[in-house]
Each structure stands twice: as C-alpha cells, then as structure tokens.
C-alpha cells in the first residue's frame, strides 16, 4: 500500500463518516419543536393544594454547592417530603451548574428546581430570552404555608420580587437577603480609638490617620476589582438619588457619566491618589485580600454580607466585623448616610420544561415558609427574603450588624440590577475598568469612559435581550 492509496482510502472513509456524524450532530441542537417529551405531572388544585401538586410526583432539586453548602436544602426537601410522603426526591449538588445542566436544558428534560448560582452560573439573560424559566407569579399569589391569612408575596421583604423580574414576569426567586457596604473591625477601631466616618471628608481624614498608624486604610480584590464598583456606585446613588441606578440599569446613554457618577468617581480617586490602598492589592484575589484585612493589614474592605461566612476559618477571635454604609459626600446628598444597598441574592429557578413544575413551585413555598426560612438562617447564618426569618435565631456578630444596618436604612435602601440583566457588563467590562482605576492607571474621567463604552457595547449588541425597569 503506497502513500497515495492510504490517502485515497482515508478520504473515502471520511466521506462515509460524514453522514453518520451529521446524524450525531443532529441530536445536540436539532430536533427543535418537540416540546411534549413525556408528560408533566399535574394534580388537582384545592385549598390545601393551591398550586396543584401531584402528591406522588418525583421532584428533582439541583443545588449549587458553594458557601452555603447543601445541608439546608436537604432540610427543605425533608419538609417537602413531610407534606408529600409519596413523592420521591432526587437531590444533587454541584459547583458547575452550567456544564452539568446545559445538555439537559437542550434535551428538554431539566430538573424541577435549580439553584443557579456561583461562578458556573448560567447567564440569566440567555435563559430568559430563550423562555427557559417558568413564571413564578402563581406562587406569589398562593397562601403562605405557615403564616395564616397572608399570601407568599405578603411575607417577602421589599425588593425581593423586583430583582427577579424580567419585563414584568417574576422568573427568579432570589432567596437570601444581602447587604453591600464597607466593613471594618470594631476591635481594631476600638483599640486605636478610631470612629467610622459618616462623611467623605472625615473618611479621608481617618484614612490619613490610619496610614500614619502604619496600617493600610483600604484593600480590595484586585483580581475581581468589581467589588470596588459597589461602594462607588452606592456613593453616586446616595448623592444623586435612585435615578442614577435606574439609568445605568436601563443602559441610558451616558448613564455612567452622570454628574453623580462623576462626583463619586472623583471622590473615590482620593484613596487611590493618596495611596490609601494596601500595596500589592491589585495582585490579590478576593480570598487573599479579605484574609489580609482579617489579619489587620488593612482597615476597610468592600464586600457583601456573605463576608463573615466566607472568612469564618481565618477570622481571629473577637475581630467583630461590622458593616457600614458608604460615607455621605455632603449635606446635598439625596439619600441619608444610613441608606444601604440591600438586595435579594442566591437565585433559584424552576425551568419552564420541568416535569414537576407545580412541585417546583411548591418547593419554593416550603423554602419561603417561616419554618423553612428560619431553618436556613440558623444553618448558614444568612438572611432570607422572608420577613422575620431571624426571629428566635441567635445571629453571629457580623450578621447582627447587617440586620441593624438594614433596619436603619429602611425605606432609603437602594439597589441596582444591571449585573443581573447583563452579566457580562459587570463581570468583564466594569470589572476591567475598576481594575485600571483603583490601581491608579486611569483617571476618574477615563474610568467612567471605559464603563460607558462597555455599557454602549451591550446596548448596541442586538443579540442581547434588553430589559427596562421603572423604579
């Protein structure tokens, strides 16, 4: 057999193989339209069973195995099982939600409940625009499981429904309640006689004092610099009012270059310019920077209320981490100092093609019962979107400060959701801009310019579905 022969034969084999491969290729994306793969489980609706759950229908739950672990979910499943003893519950936990579940979404056989969270989260914009998630409004109007006379909607904290809504449909149940602010150790501050500053000028003066004492005032996650976009945007919103956030979320032209954003960026530039940031921070990831902060190498860090849980293993005894709102820029601020960014987080969804869709909704009703929520708070030291879920639960120090800060913030609380609408905008584009800005490589104007360019690129991309919100 000479070389030419071999070539000729491989070519022939290739031709033969192509149609076979074409058939194989057909099964990944082709086959569109056959929605009726197997039947869905439906029971009869009644007062006891407002969502029409079929009592012996199996329920499949997939949990993100992250900071909260999976034990809390097993407890919720046990509560569901208590109500429907005949139901078989299939539980699984993974860190790679997207890679594990993508083939099942394509196949039309997704699980009934998905905790779509973590670094392997499936981009919600993609899911929503493909109509892959079930509407949860029926759940909101169902009566609460253990709060008599109230619907599920009535038991939720303000803002919980808005965060998971896309064009008026409530698609994503964000189960935890997260506050974003600036953290410090009251132990360190007490020992040194420092006081958390309520205005920006005082904050800068305090930073000077801290630096003189040989401690870096600030550190941040240089590998995920978007953490620093949170206090900056919060400062702008407190200065200019909630419309600053609405404009950003709605991708309005030059929303990132509004006067409020300019003023805030100029103010924050001070800590960069005066070198109030721990040396080497741009090279640290979130764990490394938070650990440096816990070791007392830096006084302030920006983070959400998961910080305490995440740092549990390395926090020294009596460190007493405390959350505080961002300092006010001045008396002209539209929102008071106490105003804090609070938002529902930790997304759960029921896929539109779930076989036991009613069961999925019912599972949410279990999670949102007072019993289910209190059990969650007790197990993972985190707040839930259910009002009063902290009653009768002893909270750790940091979480207790979060509860107090949220109480003080009250109706002045604010939020933004562009990171939910357009994951790429925060995760990649604003992230990169923050990295340049807080390492001192760009000016405030360049920073806002880079953010705006990112937002514009999303706005111009016709393949990304756009969402608007009014308030």
């Amino acid at each position, binding site marked *: 057999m000479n070389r030419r022969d071999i070539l000729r034969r491989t070519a022939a*084999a290739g031709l033969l*193989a*192509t149609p*076979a*491969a*074409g058939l*194989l*290729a057909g099964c*990944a*994306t*082709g*086959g*569109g*339209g*056959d929605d009726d793969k197997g039947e869905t489980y439906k029971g009869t609706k009644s007062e006891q069973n407002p969502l029409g759950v079929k009592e012996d229908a199996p329920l499949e739950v997939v949990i993100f195995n992250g900071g909260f672990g999976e034990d809390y979910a097993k407890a919720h499943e046990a509560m569901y099982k208590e109500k429907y003893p005949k139901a078989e519950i299939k539980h699984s936990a993974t860190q790679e939600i*997207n*890679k594990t579940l*993508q083939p099942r*979404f*394509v*196949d*039309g056989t997704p699980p009934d409940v998905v905790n779509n969270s973590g670094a*392997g989260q*499936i*981009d919600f*914009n*993609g*899911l929503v*625009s*493909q*109509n*892959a998630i079930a509407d949860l409004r029926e759940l909101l109007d169902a009566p609460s499981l253990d709060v008599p006379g109230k619907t599920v909607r009535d038991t939720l904290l303000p803002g919980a429904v808005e965060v998971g809504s896309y064009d008026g449909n409530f698609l994503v149940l964000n189960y935890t309640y997260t506050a974003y602010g600036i953290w410090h150790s009251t132990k360190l501050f007490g020992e040194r006689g420092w006081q958390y500053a309520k205005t920006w000028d005082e904050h800068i003066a305090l930073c000077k004092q801290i630096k003189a004492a040989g401690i870096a005032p600030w550190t941040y996650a*240089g*590998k995920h*610099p978007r953490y620093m976009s949170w206090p900056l945007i919060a400062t702008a919103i407190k200065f200019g009012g909630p419309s600053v956030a609405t404009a950003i979320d709605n991708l309005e032209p030059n929303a990132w270059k509004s006067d409020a954003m300019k003023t805030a960026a100029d103010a924050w530039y001070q800590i960069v310019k005066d070198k109030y940031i*721990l*040396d*080497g*921070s*741009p*090279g*640290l990831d979130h764990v*490394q920077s938070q650990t*440096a902060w816990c070791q007392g*190498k830096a006084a302030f860090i920006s983070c959400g209320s998961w910080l305490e849980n995440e740092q549990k293993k390395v926090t020294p005894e009596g460190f007493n981490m405390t959350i505080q709102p961002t300092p006010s820029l001045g008396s002209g601020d539209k929102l008071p100092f106490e105003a804090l960014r609070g938002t529902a987080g930790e997304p759960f969804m029921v896929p539109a093609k779930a076989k036991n869709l009613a069961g999925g909704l019912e599972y949410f009703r279990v999670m949102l019962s007072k019993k289910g929520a209190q059990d969650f708070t007790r197990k993972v030291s985190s707040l839930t979107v259910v009002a009063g879920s902290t009653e009768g639960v002893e909270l750790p120090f940091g979480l207790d400060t979060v509860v107090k800060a949220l109480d003080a913030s009250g109706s002045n609380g604010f939020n933004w959701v562009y990171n939910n609408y357009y*994951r*790429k905008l925060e*995760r*990649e584009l604003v*992230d*990169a*801009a923050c*990295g*340049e800005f807080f*390492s001192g*490589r760009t000016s405030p104007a360049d920073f806002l310019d880079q953010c705006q360019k990112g937002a514009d690129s999303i706005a111009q991309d016709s*393949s*990304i579905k756009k969402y608007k919100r009014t308030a």
Partner: protein
Amino acid sequence: MRHGKYPLIVTFLVPPVLLYVVFVVSPYLQTFQISTTSWLGYSAEADPVGLANFTALLHDGRVWNALKNNAVLLAVVPVLTITLGLFFSTMLSMGGRKGRAGVTGVRGTAVYRMVYFFPQVLSVVIIALLWKEVYHPNSGLLNGALRAVGLPAPTWLGDPRTAFWCVLAVMVWSNVGFYVVLFGAAMSAIPRDIYEAVLLDGASRWTTLRRITIPLLWDTVQVAWIYLAIAALDGFILIQQMTNGGPNFSSDVIGLRMYETAFGSESKFGYASAIGVVLFFLTLSVAVLALRTARRDRIEYS
C-alpha cells in the same frame, strides 16, 4: 496468511476509529454547524444566521486582542522552550568534559533529569495555583526574595505590563522538563563514536551542539515545534487560573475568549463556536506551516 490480514486490521482499527468519529470528528462537525447559528445554548432551537458570527468576529476588538497575545505566545514559547530543552539535555548527556575521558553528562545528571521532569507530573491547575502564590505581591516567594536584596517588588499578576509575561514564563517552565527528556532520549540514539570523533577534533561544546546534535535531532525538534505551537495557541488553563485574562484583558487568549463567550459571562454558543472554528483553522495552518518550513533531509544511521 495473507488472507487473515484484513480481519485483524478491522478488529483493531474499527473500535478506535468509531470512538474517534463519535467523540472527536462529530463534535468538530457540529461546531461548524453551530457556528452558523445564533444558538444561546439552553434550548433546542437554534436560528441560522449564516456567516454573521464570522463578520462580527472580524470587528471584535477583544478577539483580536486575544489573538495578538496568542501570536506572542506562538513566537516566544516554542523558541524559549526548545532552546532551554536542548541546552539542558545537552548538558545532561554530553556536557561533562573534565575528569574522565569519553562522553558523559555533567555531575548529578540523574538528579537533574528527575528535577526537570517534576512539573510534568503535576496537573496544570496545581502549577497555576503554585505560581499564583509565588507571584503573590506581599507574601510570595518572588517578592520575598526581591525585598531581601532591596529591590522593588512589583505586583506581577496585578499589573497589565507584567501579568502576561508572568504566565508565559510559567508556560515555558512547565514544558521544558518534558522536552529535556524527549531530546535526551533522541540524543542517546546518536552513535557515541560521532561525538568521540568530534572530541578528538577538538570541537567546543557549542560547535558540537550546532553542527552535530541539532542536525541529527532535527526530526525530534520539528515534532517539539508543532506540539509547542499548538500549546501556544491554547494556554487556556494557566491563563484562566492565574489571571482570568486580566488585568484589563492584558493576558487574554483566544481559548479563554471562547470559554467566556459560551460558559462565562455570556451564553452565546453560536458565537463561541465561530471562535472555535477560527481557532481550528489557525491551529491547522500553524501545524502545516511548522511542518513545511522545518522540512529537511532525514539522516539515517546505518
């Protein structure tokens, strides 16, 4: 026995070819098909968009930026790795000149050989985590050493001027060991008497390497070149683990762009497949080019 040849060939070839078709060829073909759709990855419907993904690619600055970095990797990694690999393996198999007569390696050859191979035993993720700590701006080995001798301590992975080169260095470090072993094995196939003759003629080590070793090793070097060129077009795991393309996209590579587009910050599987198709043709052309330009007459010992 001639008639028994085909059943044997078929039994041995059909299972692997079938597996190859199912797990390699069919996904490739599928990628081509998906790249002409706007598939978002989580439904069974994919709308055909023709070549729109490819025209969008042409105007995507981030993709070009990533390709530029891959081009740098392509230009630097193979050259550095092969040079270092050749140097080390030469020293290990014929570097010793003092003392005993004959062709031997430097003292402690066995130990060096083992040490060089260490990185090859570690998984790439471990290597990335290891070096992430070495590059740690405050408590890392590198900056610790620099501070000890009074030099400034850069932020390495946190600085767009250095981040990419830091990862590139790790890429070379983790590859060299394998090529030391590969070249070492090839060198041991070169007849010793050639070297003895060269020694008698009084050739220096450098001349020996340039005039004798490299020409006789050319086939192996060529293979190394192709492997490394393909590795340079990838680089995904190290980059994703160490810098995730940052800061400010300065260490982005095309593989990471593809991953981010499909699984990371977006779920544009159609567009990501288009990037995959481009990468496929790039890798293919690089491999063909490397084979063509490196072609020389083969020397056979007899």
